[in-house]
């Protein structure tokens, strides 16, 4: 399939009083047309910074793209100036944010907030834009669109606001949709609704999606491929099957092991010990070594390269080196992997 986005060796740093925070340290991934890539990883691993950098939305200063290429349909977004980016944002790439309570302008009517992009990018006049807003509100499941568009955000519930945010993102039929934890701030039933909505929309619009989440259950549900981020790097990337049935990186094992399953009451959860490294002073060697019970001497000295597991599956761990000892994932994780295999096998047909 054709590559829509190709990110090469992306480095993003923040210049703070304490020094340079290396939030993203050499990230490589691509997104193909119409596919959904999930990015998972614990808090602070650089998921938001990576995706914000794609749209040049990181605050500058202190942030800056230090190095790397962001090829979007062959053009390098990292080299574009603000004016050029304004033509990309909202039109070619748009973003759905985490907290619908704060991501809408409280003093602007909802309809006007959706219209803004249409008027700017599609050169629509007010009445054309209004028609499209009604369509969009219908699409995201907000009834009574004609009246609702004249209301302000505080007149909407959290779930409804997130639908508005989705409508804003979809307004100009972007080729790439970035959803940064779009359901985290919502309660469980609403989460499910928004997820359904997003899946539904993907089917209808065939835009590619980058879906950031903490929730591996969500990943199994929406994604084609998964990138696992740790301390500003992608440590493992592969298809959903690769990551769930055949994870290679101890950090991925940890993530899978720490995921509670429905029938898990009696099982022990496999918690990842320790805390993520300080990105002001990233450690030498593999950033995960200090928390990794399988760490070897070399892990503290030299960073592992990306090893190829299969055509779709890559992982950055010395365990994949031919001289490394054979290590199996811990029992708890293995059990979980089997659980995943069972539970997701019947949802297979549903995956987009």
């Amino acid at each position, binding site marked *: 399939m054709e590559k829509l986005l190709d990110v090469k060796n992306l480095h993003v740093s923040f210049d703070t009083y304490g020094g340079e925070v290396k939030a993203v340290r050499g990230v490589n991934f691509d997104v193909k047309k119409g596919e959904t890539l999930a990015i998972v990883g614990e808090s602070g691993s650089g998921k938001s910074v990576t995706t914000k950098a794609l749209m040049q*939305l990181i605050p500058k200063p202190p942030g800056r793209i230090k190095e790397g290429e962001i090829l979007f349909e062959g053009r390098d977004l990292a080299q574009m100036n603000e004016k050029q980016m304004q033509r990309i944002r909202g039109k070619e790439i748009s973003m759905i944010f985490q907290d619908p309570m704060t991501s809408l302008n409280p003093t602007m009517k909802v309809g006007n907030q959706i219209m803004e992009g249409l008027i700017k990018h599609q050169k629509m006049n007010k009445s054309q834009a209004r028609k499209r807003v009604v369509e969009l509100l219908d699409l995201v499941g907000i009834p009574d669109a004609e009246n609702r568009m004249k209301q302000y955000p505080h007149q909407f519930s959290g779930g409804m606001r997130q639908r508005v945010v989705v409508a804003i993102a979809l307004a100009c039929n972007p080729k790439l949709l970035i959803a940064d934890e779009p359901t985290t701030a919502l309660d469980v039933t609403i989460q499910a609704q928004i997820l359904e909505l997003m899946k539904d929309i993907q089917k209808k619009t065939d835009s590619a999606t980058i879906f950031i989440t903490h929730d591996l259950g969500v990943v199994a549900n929406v994604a084609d491929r998964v990138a696992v981020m740790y301390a500003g790097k992608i440590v493992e990337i592969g298809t959903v099957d690769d990551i769930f049935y055949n994870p290679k990186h101890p950090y991925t094992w940890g993530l899978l092991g720490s995921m509670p399953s429905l029938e898990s009451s009696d099982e022990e959860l496999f918690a990842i010990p320790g805390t993520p490294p300080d990105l002001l002073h990233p450690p030498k060697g593999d950033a995960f070594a200090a928390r990794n019970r399988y760490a070897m001497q070399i892990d503290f000295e030299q960073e592992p390269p990306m090893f190829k597991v299969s055509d779709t599956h890559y992982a950055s761990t010395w365990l994949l080196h031919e001289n490394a000892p054979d290590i199996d994932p811990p029992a708890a994780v293995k059990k979980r992997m089997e659980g995943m295999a069972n539970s997701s096998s019947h949802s297979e047909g549903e995956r987009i």
Partner: protein
Amino acid sequence: MTRYIIQRLIYMVITMFLIATLTFFLMKFLPGTPLSAADKLSEEQQAVVLEKYGLNDPVPVQYFNYMTNLVQGDLGISFQFDNREVTTIIMERIGPSMQLGVQAMFIGTIIGILLGLTSAIYHNGMLDYSSTFLAVLGQSIPSFVFAGLLQFFIGVKLGWLPVALWEGWEYSILPTISLAIFPIAIAARFMRTEMLEVMGSDYIVTARAKGVNKFGVVFKHGFRNALIPLITVLGPLAVGLMTGTLVIENIFAVPGIGEQFVKAINMNDFPIIMGTTLLIAFLFIFIILVIDLLYGVIDPRIRLAEGE
């Protein structure tokens, strides 16, 4: 909305009633009589005068009379300017004070907002530092010092504008500037803080993610949201101006209410003191009402909550 305004107006009347009562009785506790200045009167003459102004009646009767007259818009008769009505005197004097107050408020908030915006947009740049410096200066130096400096440099040295008195519009410029310094400083500082805060909020990122340009982000999305908290300081600012005029009018010899008020206090002219106090109280309550209504205009969340 209409119901809300009517409700507020009723509260206003009640508040005014309470203030009138309070000032009336406080005034009764003031030492001295209006006659102490007119030493030369004999006991008999004094008695006649006191009788004439009704000051011999028992206090409750005086209170009742005062309030009945007040309701009819009659503030009584001045002690010092024989037989002139307080209402007339205040009416004559209110013009210059109002003009100064309104001009200073207008210029003050507009310039202040512009300065604050500039600061926020060019955050940590030269423009930011200089306008912050100006704001600190304007806030810490009392307005009468500015008044003196302006009089000396612009009035005397350069001779561009009249030093004092009130004989035309150009006479209002220096007092207005002196009065406006404080509102400028406050509005600038406030606007800067609010704007910086607003520009860091999530919906600004949303706007940028839509492809809105910098102008649109600042003015369509940022400005209005930063204005809401600014309205909160407008009330105290207006009050500051009211008291500020007392001093400034004296410095520039402006025939306004403030100057009159100071004279009245020196002479124990109760009706004028009462009248002016009530006027200032009324203006104050009125401004608070206007500000609350302004909130509703700018912030949809408040408009609806109270419209219901």
